[in-house]
């Protein structure tokens, strides 16, 4: 089932820093592999592959994932083939929609060098800075551990990435201050939020199972508040991310202030087509276009009926 505007009469299109997206959905970085692209035709407004680093990273030793109630903890270690190889294979991610690229490095200079390389690649529409990785020049604290660090990084990238928009992807801790700093430094948009720091322990073996980042529906209320708080203090668009699991969740993030919404971990357990279908049903019932939802929760008179779309779930037998 592929939802199309022509078929539904619903306006799903949004505009993110001047780039039209045919739907407000974007895959969260690191949650949609090239092998799974066939399953998501027509779902996303932009493509966003897994984070790229200057040179290949082998990633962390297993175990890398552990299930938790309504979520999972991961510690992958940014396994990726490096930017050179990534760009050689770029066309596999060309879905005929804007292509955003997530980057990370160990230092400000590494981020800047990536931005310089990507600035010359016409097919890439925007760059997302993964600020959750450790800054080796600051004792391994994450780049988003402080507003000054965020500012320094975004300034360096902004000056070298040319006319491509920059999305700064922020973690929940200090998100409002960091959002202000990123905006002041020239970020064109903010992705809010990344995974939350988390730990799982195997009581049977009495060992740490995975120390990493928590994602999934468990973190949705945290992410929703971050989007709400951030969008209240910045003028640049916010891309909501964190635990989106249904069309209603998409609507909630947009009502809270998001212009677009990332779908991540839930795509492992749900067909993203269903999420788009639910969101489409929500819009149809409310009589609104997708772009009209952004920040509507702050409006003194939302002035719209409250739709309650039924979850779409296709059952079939093989």
């Amino acid at each position, binding site marked *: 089932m592929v939802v199309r505007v022509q078929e539904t009469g619903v306006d799903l299109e949004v505009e993110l820093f001047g780039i039209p997206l045919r739907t407000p959905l974007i895959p969260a970085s690191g949650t949609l592999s090239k092998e799974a692209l066939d399953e998501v035709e027509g779902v996303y407004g932009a493509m966003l592959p897994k984070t790229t680093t200057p040179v290949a990273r082998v990633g962390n*030793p297993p175990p890398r994932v552990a299930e938790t109630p309504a979520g999972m903890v991961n510690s992958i270690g940014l396994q990726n083939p490096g930017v050179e190889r990534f760009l050689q294979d770029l066309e596999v991610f060309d879905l005929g929609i804007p292509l955003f690229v997530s980057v990370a490095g160990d230092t400000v200079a590494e981020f800047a060098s990536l931005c310089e390389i990507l600035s010359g690649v016409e097919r890439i529409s925007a760059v997302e800075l993964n600020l959750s990785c450790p800054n080796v020049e600051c004792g391994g604290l994450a780049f988003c551990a402080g507003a000054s660090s965020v500012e320094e990084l975004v300034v360096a990238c902004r000056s070298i990435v040319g006319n491509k928009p920059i999305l700064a992807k922020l973690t929940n801790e200090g998100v409002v201050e960091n959002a202000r700093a990123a905006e002041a430094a020239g970020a064109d948009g903010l992705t809010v939020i990344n995974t939350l720091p988390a730990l799982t322990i195997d009581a049977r073996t009495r060992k740490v199972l995975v120390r990493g980042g928590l994602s999934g529906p468990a973190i949705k209320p945290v992410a929703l508040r971050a989007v709400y708080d951030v969008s209240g203090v910045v003028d640049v668009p916010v891309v909501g991310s964190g635990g989106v699991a249904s069309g209603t969740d998409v609507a909630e993030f947009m009502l809270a202030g998001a212009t677009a919404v990332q779908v991540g971990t839930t795509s492992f357990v749900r067909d993203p087509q269903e999420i788009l279908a639910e969101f489409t049903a929500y819009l149809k019932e409310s009589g609104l276009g997708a772009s009209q939802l952004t920040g509507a929760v702050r409006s003194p008179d939302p002035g719209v009926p409250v739709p309650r779309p039924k979850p779409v779930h296709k059952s079939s037998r093989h």
Partner: protein
Amino acid sequence: MKFYRVNVEEREALGSYTLLRYRWNGPVEPGQFVMARTAGYPITLDPFLARPFSFYDHDGGVASFLFEVRGRGTALLDAASSIEVTAPLGKRFRIELGLGRAALLGGGIGVAPLKILGRHLDAMGVPHDVFLGFADAAASVVAKDFPGAEVATMDGAVGTRGTVLNASGALTNYGAIYSCGPNSMLAAVKLAAGKNSLCQLSVEERMGCGNGSCNGCVVPVHGGYVRSCIEGPVFDAEVLAW
């Protein structure tokens, strides 16, 4: 990932394990796996992820997988009347003709893919011997489904005392070796297999997505890690850096 709701046709208690059968007409190759979970509306939140299981068998439109109740996810699978599945996933066991006799070695729940593999080997006329290792008698009940198999149990309650390699003895006379079980067992099989035979190992790893997206289920290879859901779960033994 798209899941399909299917009705459980039959659930058979086999000692420590449960064999679950469901209607499935799609193609299934030996060594491939299914991601399965109980049906939620629209998803379940606890457990949140689906679980990977090797196909045990597939015949006449009925597929089956074998599991042991170890936590909440498998406990629910042990009781549900309908489940959600996505399949077939992963790389299959490669069967080559003309290699001579094949040895199939399974450890614990890892005996599962050897059932469907044996059926395919029979159909292709490849002679083979089956060796199964278990912790104890309760786990070994499933061995009744493998006529002629040599069995070992760690406590010696059934068959040879010790590991599956105690049951099989030397493997160097086999032209092909297929194995599934815990990593430590697979490493021992790789060592025992030597270098002159086809040796294919099916790994058991924790998985997040099952479709290559999360990079969670990796195994070590020379030069890094690869995903067991896409590049595996069946690997040529020499590829694995054990």
